[in-house]
């Protein structure tokens, strides 16, 4: 199946039109669980980007030899292999960040977004397109995680990426674990608001 989108369009598609967190509402667990700082979001985003790109390319390479009936277990095994790789690499080279993210690195294996992209895109498209789609989706996830981390870190700790910006802590509530639900819910409502206003303006 030919794909008429350019590489650039594939990337922006992942970041904006089909943003995994805000648009597809997939992979919510890390978005709520460890998005307390921008740094956490960036680190997990890099890990997901890596797994998404490599498993997309793997599946795209072998798409013609995978029997359709066992495709889901095959996807799972491919993802699990790449998650193991990134898990061991992070544990060896960035032990501090790894300890902060805890079990979530290993849980990338169960992130619905990756399996979904393999099923929807990589098993039909060429290796090149799958690669760029993987990058787009990974960046989209990273962008979503960092946006939530931005709000929570700025409002909760008054800092960004660990650097003190405001000099005081406006609302400590936002770094409480359960505030993740509120922040994600409010941000989604905010994006909905923009979309509704945009549609109204278009109609008028």
């Amino acid at each position, binding site marked *: 199946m030919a794909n008429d989108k350019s590489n650039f369009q594939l990337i922006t598609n992942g970041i904006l039109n089909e943003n995994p967190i805000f648009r597809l509402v997939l992979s919510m*667990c890390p978005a709520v669980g460890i998005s307390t700082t921008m740094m956490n979001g960036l680190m997990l985003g890099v890990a997901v980007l890596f797994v998404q790109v490599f498993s997309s390319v793997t599946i795209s390479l072998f798409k013609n030899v995978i029997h359709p009936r066992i495709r889901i277990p095959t996807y799972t095994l491919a993802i699990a*292999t790449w998650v193991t790789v990134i898990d*061991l690499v992070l544990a060896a080279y960035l032990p501090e960040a790894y300890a902060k993210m805890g079990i979530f690195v*290993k849980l990338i294996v169960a992130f619905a977004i990756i399996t979904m992209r393999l099923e929807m895109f990589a098993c039909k498209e060429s290796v090149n397109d799958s690669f760029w789609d993987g990058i787009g989706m990974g960046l989209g996830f990273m962008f979503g995680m960092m946006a939530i981390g931005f709000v929570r870190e700025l409002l909760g700790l008054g800092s960004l990426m660990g650097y003190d910006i405001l000099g005081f802590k406006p609302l400590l509530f936002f770094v409480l674990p359960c505030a993740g639900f509120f922040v994600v*819910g409010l941000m989604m*409502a905010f994006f*909905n*608001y923009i979309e509704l206003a945009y549609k109204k303006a278009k109609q008028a």
Partner: protein
Amino acid sequence: MKNIMTRHIFSLLLLLILPGLAMGQDLVTAKSFGADNEIIVSFSQAVDPGAVANTANYTVYEEPDPDIRLQVEFVVVAADQMSASLFFSEPLNTTQTHVVTIANLVPAQGPATFTVAKSYLGYLVGILVSALLINNFVFTKYLGLCVFFGTSKRKDTAKGMGFTFTIVMVVSAIMSWFFYQYILKPFDLNFLQIVVFIGLVSLTVQAVDTVLRKVNPALFNSFGVYLVLVIANCVIIAVPLILADNEYNFLETFMLSLGAGGGFLLALYLMSSVRERMDLANIPPTFKGVPIAFIVAGQFALAFLGFSGLQIF
């Protein structure tokens, strides 16, 4: 002549009794955890309050770390001298077995050593309750959210998903435990954890699917659709990883998986009850659907924060 006989019998008796006394088993009759930082010890006879109250006579450590000694802050001896309370400067980790040694308790005897642990049944129930409420996987660990928001629109769906999930959870956790203890650990294959566990989960789901289809088609028709969703739930892979990290034994594994599944069922049921009501409410268009569900889940999470610090046993 009779005098010598008595003396012999007496020394024989002493020989029989002394080792027992020296091990201290008879002297300490009961021991338990009291408050956060307290261990209560009861003795079979009145003891020397001076020796018992001397904190230098104690060595206390958690069984896994004999090198880390816990410092006894002070000791309160009861009025009848039959029991004493040991107070520590910091709260004790009561899930661990503590080994206590008291030197010079009774003059001319070796130190008395004994272990203090919670009752095992209480500990097991503690794991279950903790996974259900205190560390509820959805509201305090933020796992399994995709499926949680996807299947909590109707009560029937929520119940079906919750029960299916609990069954698959228990079966796959027990299988993962066997694989981890008897294959991964002995052969040093720990780095294969993720691959093996996710494989086992998919296998269990496939097996439950096949068995249910043959044995009870009616049940399959109502629950079958949820089986596919189970694989996409992070809780199902988180539990094997947690039990491997904590080196749980078989019973603990069973309790943890039951608690995780039950907790998920509880969360789904609570959430679906609210969402059914929300259908009737007038919600601003920007919040319709997922955003308002997130806000409600946040309020549930706040409420579940209240369970933290809950200790039953």
